[in-house]
């Protein structure tokens, strides 16, 4: 196997890791497409996916220690969930709101990722409420001396919410091991980023809280990974938070309920399609001799097989029993 040093620009990743990175990105893409397809077929009333965000999501999560570190994602983070270890089956079970879906057993919307074992925190829909949760998790990690890092994700729209200010301020004061990842796809549904902030790079806000902020090309998975790796290092060594802005683009409508042609041009979308992080990383892998077309095709075939199997499993899995709707309002036997 090609050793680390031999791959220039690989940010210290070896062949196996690089292929895993690609596989996970492709899996994220394919799971998103599958969910939207199922939705169009009338299977699952709603789909929200992250096509286009794969490099930003997988690249950041790849720098973490799954099950030890914490991720506090938002609804678009299929790539984050998969990188940390949730399976296509977990996500498709959630998409079809099956009773055994680990995310919520059909109580939360799809793409509201959750796994207690994997430290993937269940989210809600109100944008950015999860950001203080990540800071609280990081506070506990510091107070308990656990060495765990918490990473939370939100969009450019989410950056406008007051909770983000309050949470980042506290994280800065106490130099907490937390990383703020903003997936800046330049739109909050239809609202362009120029109507959301008067600055070029939202990462500049980190300076308002006394910690570093970086802006990276969110479609360059290796650049994203390297930024995340450095942030994790900082966090783990007690140097406090980092804000990472990954500039990217949503290649699909906001959700299955959205018609993005109402607010952005085909030309703009096409231009970004040419910057597709998957195509780009595949080219890089081929150029650097990490994988040839054949190897890539094998990876894709393997992933598609898994997704087909997961789909079939989920479609045949049982739905929740109606009366279970009354359970878990309070911790059972808790008092």
């Amino acid at each position: 196997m090609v050793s680390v040093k031999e791959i220039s620009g690989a940010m210290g990743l070896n062949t196996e890791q690089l292929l895993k990175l690609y596989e996970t990105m492709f899996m994220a893409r394919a799971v998103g497409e599958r969910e939207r397809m199922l939705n169009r077929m009338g299977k699952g009333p709603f789909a929200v996916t992250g096509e286009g965000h794969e490099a930003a999501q997988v690249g950041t999560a790849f720098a973490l220690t799954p099950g030890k570190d914490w991720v506090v994602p938002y609804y678009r983070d299929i790539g984050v969930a998969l990188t940390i270890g949730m399976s296509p089956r977990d996500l498709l079970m959630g998409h079809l709101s099956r009773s055994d879906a680990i995310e919520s057993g059909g109580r939360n919307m799809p793409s509201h990722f959750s796994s207690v074992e994997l430290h993937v925190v269940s989210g809600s829909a109100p944008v950015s409420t999860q950001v203080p949760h990540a800071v609280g998790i990081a506070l506990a990690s510091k107070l308990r001396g656990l060495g765990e890092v918490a990473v939370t994700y939100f969009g450019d729209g989410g950056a406008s919410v007051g909770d983000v200010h309050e949470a980042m301020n506290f994280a800065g004061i106490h130099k907490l091991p937390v990383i703020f990842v903003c997936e800046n796809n330049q739109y909050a549904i239809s609202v362009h980023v120029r109507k959301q902030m008067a600055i070029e790079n939202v990462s500049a806000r980190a300076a308002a809280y006394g910690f570093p902020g970086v802006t990276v090309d969110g479609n360059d998975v290796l650049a994203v990974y390297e930024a995340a790796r450095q942030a994790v290092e900082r966090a783990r060594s007690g140097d406090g938070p980092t804000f990472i802005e990954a500039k990217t683009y949503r290649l699909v409508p906001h959700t299955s309920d959205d018609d993005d042609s109402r607010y952005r041009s085909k030309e703009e979308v096409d231009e970004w399609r040419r910057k597709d992080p998957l195509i780009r990383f595949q080219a890089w892998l081929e150029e650097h001799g990490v994988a040839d077309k054949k190897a890539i095709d094998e990876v894709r075939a393997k992933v598609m097989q898994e997704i087909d199997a997961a789909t079939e499993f989920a479609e045949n899995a049982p739905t929740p029993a109606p009366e279970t709707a009354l359970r878990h309002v309070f911790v059972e036997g808790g008092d």
Partner: protein
Amino acid sequence: MAEKTLIEVVNDGLRDELRRDERTFILGEDVAEGGVFKATEGLFDEFGEKRVIDMPLAEAAIVGISIGASLNGLLPIAEIQFADFIHPAFDQIVSEAARLHYRSNGTWSCPITIRTPYGAGIHGGPYHSQSIEAFYAHVPGLKVICVGSPYDAKGLLKSAIRDPNPVLFLEHKKAYRLFREEVPEDEYTIPIGKAAVKREGSDITLVTYGLMTRHSLEAAETLQSEDGVSVEVIDLRTVSPWDKERVLESVRKTGKALIVYEDNITGGFGAEVAATIAEEAFDYLDGPVTRIASPDVPIAPYSGILEEYVLPNPAKIAEGIRKLAGY
């Protein structure tokens, strides 16, 4: 008269008011593009960026900035994309909009309107389905309207926008495109605080609002035909201030009261209606003041199976009427 849906008349009503009064303007998320439910469709094109303003994703600011603009001569019409997302603005609504007039001894006032889609039944899960009227109907200084049908919606939206007080205008999102109603093209308004008797009856008074009015009317129909029970269905339309007199008058006539609401039962707005009837119409009661609402779980789980299990529907309401009638 044209047959219109609820969402169509909201759009019409907004257009009328923007044309009628230069001081009005709309602010909210995605409103320029027309809004996720298309309530503001076409308004940006007609009125431009000074009258239809896209806001950053920040509900406290949407309300707080509306309050400020209202102090300086404008009549803001704020849209909160889903009622579930109004919570970050709770402080601005409760501490500021609702209390400004009182705390300033009547010298300042805050004529803002906050529109938002609420209610369940669309597989929206626990964050696109909530009823929020109970929180706000408790707050002095704030008016709260819940509409579930086109005719009422248009007349009340105009009254809300013209009211000199802060008004929370809740539009049931499941009713947006559920049915059409005859709605006059000509200007009309409906007074805030007045209920509507949607069906006359002599055996039981059913008090409700929002989408539950439609479900209740269906249930009343069933009871009439199947059991010969005559139900008077009152749609409050405004929950704060609510039409106590009209409700008490009906209960004094029928002697039985059933309150139906969509929200989880404990501490829901229907509790206030029931408590008032129990105190002020006690001598006339021939049976327990009964409530039908959702159980105490977060409204509503996403799965259609779970959602249907928790929400009131015509069958559950019919069952409740039957039980009370047989008392």
